[in-house]
């Protein structure tokens, strides 16, 4: 037990114990911290209940989806004004699961983000690549499609099981594209002695592969899926060489809407809906 001495007021104070004013100070400070923490939790975790984007969608019964409908098979608008494509089906399914209707707004690509930020639409679903430089301006959903590069071989190819199998092989690429750069990176940085054969288009590169003029090709997934469907005769290694994630964009402060989209995309991955879309459109 500490030695007691009388303080100025005559109150007993324990030597080594904090003076009263300090105790009050720390107590108030702790209370302040708790209040701040509570406020932060309330505004982030429970923000969804006050997410204006979600509430507007629910109130109107419509989710307005902005897209540049000139990019098949993701989105295209025909002469009668009807929209169709992978992104269109995705948007309609999201709307159905939320119990609302999807309306599509056709906006030229350059104006998409401004249209979102000026409330011309609620979401952007437009084969939009994730852009790390815009994450302060918009909120991005998790990815729903990977348009990255795939390593492609003939169906009967057995010796190439990965990039290391490309040593001393001819690899077809589209001139000047990400596939071309990836092939150069493998040659120069990963030191795989492959021979790069450039073509004017990715289709020509895949045709050359099919015809046996090259041993493999490095091409974006969309071109690969199309070619694999028709004319076929090729297969691709399941591991992507690079990622190009397509995402949904929404206004900042749409935390609850983001959560609803993320949850639905996760369900769509699990229940096979996204695979169904891929089979339908590629």
């Amino acid at each position, binding site marked *: 037990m500490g030695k007691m001495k009388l303080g100025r007021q005559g109150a007993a104070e324990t030597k080594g114990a904090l003076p009263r004013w300090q105790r009050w100070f720390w107590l108030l400070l702790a209370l302040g911290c708790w209040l701040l923490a509570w406020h932060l939790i309330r505004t982030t975790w429970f923000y969804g209940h006050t997410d204006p984007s979600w509430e507007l969608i629910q109130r109107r019964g419509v989710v307005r989806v902005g897209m540049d409908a*000139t*990019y*098949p*098979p993701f989105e*295209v608008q025909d002469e009668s004004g009807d929209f169709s494509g992978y992104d269109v089906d995705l948007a309609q399914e999201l709307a159905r699961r939320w119990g609302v209707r999807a309306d599509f707004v056709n*906006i*030229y*690509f*350059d*104006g998409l983000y*401004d*249209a979102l*930020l*000026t409330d*011309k639409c609620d979401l952007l679903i437009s*084969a939009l*690549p994730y852009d790390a430089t815009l994450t302060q301006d918009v909120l991005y959903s998790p990815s729903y499609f990977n348009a990255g590069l795939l390593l492609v071989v003939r169906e009967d190819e057995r010796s190439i099981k990965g990039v290391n199998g490309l040593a001393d092989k001819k690899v077809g690429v589209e*001139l*000047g*594209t*990400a596939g*071309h*750069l990836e092939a150069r990176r493998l040659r120069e940085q990963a030191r795989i002695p492959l021979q790069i054969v450039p073509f*004017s*288009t*990715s*289709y020509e590169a895949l045709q050359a592969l099919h015809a046996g003029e090259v041993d493999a090709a490095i091409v974006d997934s*969309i*071109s690969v899926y199309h070619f694999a469907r028709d004319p076929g005769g090729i297969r691709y290694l399941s591991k992507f060489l690079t990622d*190009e994630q397509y995402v949904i964009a929404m206004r900042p402060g749409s935390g609850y809407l983001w959560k609803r989209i993320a949850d639905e995309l996760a369900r769509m991955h699990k229940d096979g809906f996204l695979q169904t879309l891929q089979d339908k459109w590629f």
Partner: protein
Amino acid sequence: MSHGGSNQRRLTRLPKFSKLRKSLFVIRLLVALPLLWLVGRAPQPVVRIGPPQKVQTTNPKMGVHTRLTDEVEEWKIKRTLEMVREMGAPWIVEYFPWGYYEPEKGHYDWTHPDLVVNHALAQGLTVLARIDFVPEWAQPENTTFRYLPEEHFADYADFIYAFVQHFSGRVRYVIIWNEPNLSFEWGYRLPDPAAYARLLKAAYLRAKEADPEVTVLAAGLAPTLAPPGSEWGMDDLEFLQRMYDAGAQGYFDGVAIHAYGWAFPPDDPPAPEAINFARAELVHEVMARNGDGDLPCFITEAGWNDHPRWAKAVPPGLRIEYTVRAYEKAQQEWPWCQVVAMWAFRYPWPARTFQDGFTFVTPGFISKPIYTEVQHYAQGEQRAGSRQ
């Protein structure tokens, strides 16, 4: 000998010695730190402007739209412009965002634009400067950087004055704003030809104050068939006529034109209901109807796209053919057209969308086949497609 005594002296000396050691340490640190910083920096290539060059070309109307606004590294700026010269194009259109260079009213930062302009001039290129992009201090809250309220028209005009004055003798062409007939480019407001005419007038007067010899161009309008009253835009031909109706005449020395071909060849005939390269003739006709037939036109955006999946693209071979033919057409058939600048020469980084299908050179400076074929054309050689 008394050790205690010498110890005493040592003890007495130690504090002074310690101070000296500390001072020497601090001095060494002060010298070493900058050296460490220098050593730690990645070596930067030494970039020289180099001796003045001249563009060798058979078609002096060839141009490209470069996109060096966000190109940070000087060597890339120089290399891009070298490649433009080597391709045979004497003109470039470059974007100079107002908001980048006047971050606060009256305070200018010309460092980057000086780099671009000086390198362009060294490569023998003529610069057409497109100027827009509202700085934050002139932008109302919750609007975009294309929303210029009328109370800030004078500030924009002041910037035009400062720009023209700073670049006097180096940049002889300025383009006032961009595609104001699109609501997106007008801050997602309804397009307003009369308001644009007022902006143009204000900018023109200030530009001439700074340099009477500068050529002021009215903005290139987006070719569009937007129906009357559309919230997205106004037909470019209608917008131009309404600019004249609002008194814009006399406040520009020429007109910038945007003439994208989409999926149509350059010789596809012009028609008010068609968007094609030859729509530029209709723009010129509007000017002629209003008494400005003698004013020059500058096609500051044009071109075709060869992305494999874009609905308005053409195959790469056709893109090359159409591009070369467009340059030829302007030279042989359009005396009123001073330049055709194709969009876009190169981006600093990949767009990763269909827009990459517009470029001639990749961000990594790989020249695409279109670059090589246009170069052959500029040198008067036969193109690969026409060679036996």
